[in-house]
Structure formats: structure tokens, C-alpha cells
């Protein structure tokens, strides 16, 4: 550009300028404009935890927290899987049965064919990816709505699973490594070591970013904000690991003042680092790679993405592959926790997965939401089931409350957006 404006235009900010106070003010302004993200779900989770702690004496204990996590892990993984397609404004109704079919393949391969468990997992993952490719092809290339394609698979795969398992059949999960995912814990030292490693990596990435911004000549947010953010994550993580390092079996009681002899249950459940790792890698891809950016763009306005030269068909197919592959992980989690795989495994979970994503703040219209939202939403739904179970309420109450929370979450989202829209018109 060679034009010379008469007066120099004002510099245009980027939101990275200013001190800690400015940053907080900007954050609250953003909240008021309706961008609340996972905040309502997080608040709901905290309220539910407080409520159940008051109502039930056994809720607030390391043993129950570990239980809660393993109960939530399957749903969390499925909800995160669904985020990739929900961000496109698509849906995968077959994610649940895909998790069931792939879990069935794992156990049948191990049982009937004597396949090594790692090989069985890899084969199941490939099958999951193939299912995703199939869905993606029909959605992106043939042009059938994903609702229809995956509804077809939802029906068809229940039959496929019946064929794989055999009617009325059930396979026990006996491979120690698979059982361990949900039922064993990391040695205490390893939990701490992984935590320190994660914090080091997070800090390194943060400074890499700051450096790169400095080299580009744009301002960075104040260092104090970064310190605060990393500090908060470190504190929460350390508290969690310290809690998980307590002997959870000790709460089983004592006889005449002498603790009953028992094997200690302590350490972070093995599923936690797996789930956190997948959450982290997925978030990295969505936030920091070209593919992630294109996924949000296609979800926001597919025509704009196409005109910008993005291969929207490929973006869609890859999203469905990711979803089905992560659904396989969810299926393995479920098999590990329940200990058996039946012809009905995974049949019911998919709508809970969608609910978890929505409760967490992911928009079904596409383009808006993050993996962590789905994870928090899954925690909310799991804590409802867990808490009501401890209170001895009938299972019906669980469904009623979960449904109510879903509608409440959607209402908060809609109202905050409408209010924000109103204030936009005023300015």
C-alpha cells in the first residue's frame, strides 16, 4: 500500500495490551457480551459438589472422587469425540455403537483369536477410523445429512455388534492391561512426575508463544497473568494428586479402634493421564494448527471457508474420522470399567455424550465450543448420577435431573446471548 493518509490512523489493539487490571476488565467485558464458555457448567459443577457434600457424608472423599472420575471418563471421552463433528454443525448418532462395536472387536480378537492386546487395540482403532471415513464420505461427498447417515449406522451397528458378540453373549475383559485402565492407579511418584512434566511442557509452550509474538513485534499479555494462570493450574493439579495419594481404602473403617487390615488404594487412576493427554493434544490441534482453524471456519460458515480455498470436504471427513477413533477409546474405557462387553455395550451413551457437550457450552449449530467444555459437561452429568446414587434416590431421578440441567444450560446460553445481542444494538 502506498497511500498516505492525511492524519495517521489510531493504532489498532489486539487485546494483549495493558496490565493485569486491564486484562481482567477485558475478560469480564467478554463474559458480559455472552461469551461465557464453560463458566456456567463449571459453576454448576461446584454447586452440585457442595450440595452433595452437605447431603451425603460419603460424597466428599478421595474414594468417591476417584470413583466419580472413572464413572465420568467414558462419557468424557465420547463427548470429546463428538465435539469434533458438533463444531461442524454435524452430529454422529453412531458414536456410541461405534464404541460398542470396536470394544467388541477388541475382546473377541483377544478371546477367540488369541491376538495380542496391543494389536487388538490397533485393529479396533483402524476399524474406528474406517467407520469415520465411511460417515465422512457419505456426508461430505454424497451429501447426505450426517443425522441420517449416522442414524442408519446406529441401527445397523446394533445388529453388527450382535453378530460379533453372538446373541445373549458376553465377553469378560480379562487382559490385565485393559482391566488396569479403570481399576488400577499410578504409583504415587509417577503421578507427581507426570504432573511436573506436564507443567514444564505447558510453561515451555507459553514462553515459546511469548517469544514468537515478541519477534513478530506485537505486545504480550503481562507476565503476571501467565504466572497467575499457570499457578492456578499447578495448585489445582497438586491438590488433586495429593488427594489421590491418600489411601482410599483406609476409609473402610476400623474395629475397636484398630484399622481393619487392607491393601492400600492410592495414586491417580491410570485413566486420568490418558484422558488428560487426549484432551490436551486435541485442544492443541484445535487451537494451534491450521486444521483446527479450518474446522471452526467450516462450522461457522462453510461457504466462506470454501471461497477461502479450504477443502471443506477433507475437513469434514477428518473430523468424522477423529470422532469415530475417539469413540473407540471411549468403548475401551467402558469395557475396562464394566469388565464385560455385551451386545448392548455403548448402545445408550451417545445422547448423554451430546448432552455433556451442550451442558459444557458447545453449540450444536457449529463453530463454537472447546474440548474442555465437553469434559466439564461430562463431569456435571457424572456427578449428578454419582451424588443421587449415594443419596439412594431411584434411577429415574437421575434422568429427570440430568434432563433439567441440560435445558437449564441451554437456557443460560440463549439468554446471555440474547442480552449481549441487545447491548450490541444499543452501542
Amino acid at each position, binding site marked *: *500500500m*502506498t*497511500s498516505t*493518509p492525511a492524519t495517521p*490512523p*489510531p*493504532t*489498532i*489493539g*489486539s*487485546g*494483549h495490551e495493558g496490565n493485569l487490571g486491564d486484562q481482567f476488565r477485558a475478560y469480564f467485558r467478554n463474559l458480559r*457480551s455472552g*461469551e461465557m464458555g464453560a463458566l456456567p457448567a463449571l459453576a454448576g459443577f461446584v454447586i452440585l459438589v457442595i450440595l452433595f457434600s452437605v447431603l451425603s457424608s460419603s460424597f466428599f472423599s478421595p474414594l468417591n472422587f476417584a470413583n466419580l472420575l472413572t464413572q465420568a471418563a467414558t462419557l468424557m471421552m465420547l463427548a470429546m469425540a463428538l465435539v469434533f463433528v458438533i463444531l461442524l454443525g454435524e452430529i454422529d448418532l453412531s458414536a456410541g455403537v461405534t464404541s460398542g462395536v470396536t470394544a467388541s472387536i477388541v475382546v473377541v480378537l483377544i478371546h477367540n483369536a488369541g491376538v495380542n492386546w496391543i494389536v487388538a487395540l490397533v485393529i479396533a482403532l483402524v476399524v474406528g477410523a474406517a467407520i469415520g471415513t465411511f460417515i465422512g464420505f457419505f456426508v461430505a461427498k454424497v451429501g447426505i445429512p450426517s443425522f441420517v447417515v449416522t442414524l442408519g449406522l446406529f441401527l445397523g451397528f446394533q445388529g453388527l455388534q450382535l453378530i460379533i458378540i453372538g446373541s445373549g453373549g458376553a465377553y469378560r475383559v480379562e487382559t490385565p492391561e485393559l482391566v488396569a485402565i479403570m481399576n488400577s492407579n499410578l504409583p504415587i511418584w509417577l503421578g507427581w512426575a507426570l504432573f511436573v512434566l506436564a507443567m514444564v511442557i505447558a510453561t515451555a509452550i507459553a514462553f*515459546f*508463544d511469548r517469544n*514468537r*509474538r*515478541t*519477534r*513478530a*513485534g*506485537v505486545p504480550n499479555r503481562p507476565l503476571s497473568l501467565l504466572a497467575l494462570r499457570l499457578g492456578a493450574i499447578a495448585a489445582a493439579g497438586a491438590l488433586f494428586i495429593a488427594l489421590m495419594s491418600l489411601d482410599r481404602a483406609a476409609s473402610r473403617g476400623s474395629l475397636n479402634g484398630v484399622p481393619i487390615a487392607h491393601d492400600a488404594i492410592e495414586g491417580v487412576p491410570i485413566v486420568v493421564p490418558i484422558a488428560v493427554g487426549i484432551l490436551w493434544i486435541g485442544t492443541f490441534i484445535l487451537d*494451534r*494448527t*491450521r486444521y483446527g*482453524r*479450518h474446522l*471452526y*471456519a467450516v*462450522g*461457522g*460458515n462453510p*461457504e*466462506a*471457508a*470454501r*471461497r*477461502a*480455498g*479450504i477443502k471443506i470436504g477433507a475437513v469434514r471427513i477428518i473430523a468424522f474420522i477423529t470422532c469415530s477413533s475417539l469413540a473407540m477409546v471411549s468403548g475401551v474405557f467402558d469395557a475396562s470399567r464394566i469388565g464385560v462387553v455385551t451386545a448392548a455395550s455403548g448402545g445408550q451413551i451417545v445422547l448423554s455424550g451430546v448432552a455433556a457437550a451442550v451442558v459444557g457450552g458447545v453449540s450444536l449449530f457449529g*463453530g*463454537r465450543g472447546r474440548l474442555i467444555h465437553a469434559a466439564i459437561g461430562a463431569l456435571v452429568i457424572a456427578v449428578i448420577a454419582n451424588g443421587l446414587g449415594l443419596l439412594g434416590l431411584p434411577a429415574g431421578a437421575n434422568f429427570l435431573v440430568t434432563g433439567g440441567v441440560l435445558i437449564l444450560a441451554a437456557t443460560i446460553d440463549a439468554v446471555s446471548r440474547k442480552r449481549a445481542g441487545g447491548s*450490541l444494538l444499543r452501542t
Partner: protein
Amino acid sequence: MDVPVIELTDVRKSFGPVDVLKGVNLQAFAGKVTALVGDNGAGKSTLVKGLAGVQPFDAGEIKFNNEVVSLTTPREAAAHGIEVVYQDLALCENLDIVQNMFLGREEVTAGTLNEGIMEREASETLQSLSVRTVSSVRQKVSSLSGGQRQTVAIARSVLKNAKVVILDEPTAALGVAQTEQVLSLVRRLADSGVAVILISHNLVDVFKVADFVSVLYLGHMVASLDVKDTNNDDVVGYITGSKTYEGKNA
């Protein structure tokens, strides 16, 4: 007159049995605004989509700086420096200004998006266009007004050294003040050396910023004129088909 940056000769396009472009010629020159006018359904947007590679022409010759080129994909068009601001804008409302400006051509270093460089180039481009209505390049497009969105779309088009910028009715949905801003932006764009093709139904706007005006009537280019040699009534006549053109092409 010097060599046109872009020159279309006998371009044709049909949708099934419907012939929309029936042999159209068009030229655009560096540093000049060429207005493209015509009634609804004359084929203006179809012409633009062909130039953008989104909806390739069926036949005809496209010359870019006097060399014959093919424009069959958005990428080919972008490689020649042809950028389009569409009638319906085509921005992603869920993304911010920087993300929209760099959509499909993100800066990547070490395998990850280099937000710093994109942020700097975006604000430099907005400043070079003397944009005053945007306070932060990290605002979501959903929070912008119509004029601001138009500004972002235009800034996106000039981000990567555009040679030809095509604007499809950039002021159609804007109020008086914002129309004024966008028109002066269009003029600055041309003054910086870009060949601008401006589609508009508003002849007042056309006479305000354009250097040449080409009139499309039912798929035929019925007139190509220098704005200095014509007037509002003549152009209206060509647009409605009540007047026929006898002179040679401008």
C-alpha cells in the same frame, strides 16, 4: 491506454439450458475503478464468480497482464492476485478479524499458527487503509456492524498484494455514513495501484468513485464507457435496454 491488468474476451457461462453470460468482454486497469452495472439477474455475480475461480466460465479467454491464464479454482485466482469481496461477505462470524483475514492462508511456523505475525499484518493492513472504526483486531466478526464487516472483507482482499479486487455491491446494506466510508476505502484501494472492479446498483456511488463503467444487459456487455464521457441518464438507458450503444469499447 496502457495494458489492462485483466481482460476478458467473449466469456460464456450457462446453467443447464439457461445462458447467463453470452459472450462478455471486460477490462480493468491498475489504479482505476471499473464499475460493473446492470439490472438484477444481468449476470454480474456470475461474472465475478468466474473471475474468482469459484464457478469457472464455460468458454472465453482470460488474459492477465496480457497473458492467457486459466481460472478454475479459488487458489489459481488467488495466485494471480485476484481477490473478491462477495455480495454476501462470506466471513466466519465465529472467528475474529485476524482469523478471517488470514482464513485459508494462515501463517504457520514450527507446525503451529503464528498468531503474532498474522496479528501484526492484519493491523498494518487496516491502518494502511486508514480504517478508524475498528478498535481491536481480535474482535469477533459477530460483534461488528455491517460497515465494519465490509471493511474487514476489503482488508482481507488486499492483505496479500492483490492486483485485482472485485467488490460485489459493497454498499448495498449500509447506511449513509458507512457507505461514505466504504466508498472512500474503495478509492484509496485504487489509488494504491490496485485494479478495482466495483459492482453496484447505485449510480450515484458509481459516478462518485468509478473511472470507467461497463453495463451488462441480459448477459451481453452493452456498453463500456469512461465516466467523464457519459451521464446518469445514458447509463440508465443502457441498463434498462432502452438505449443501445454504438461507440467502440472503452
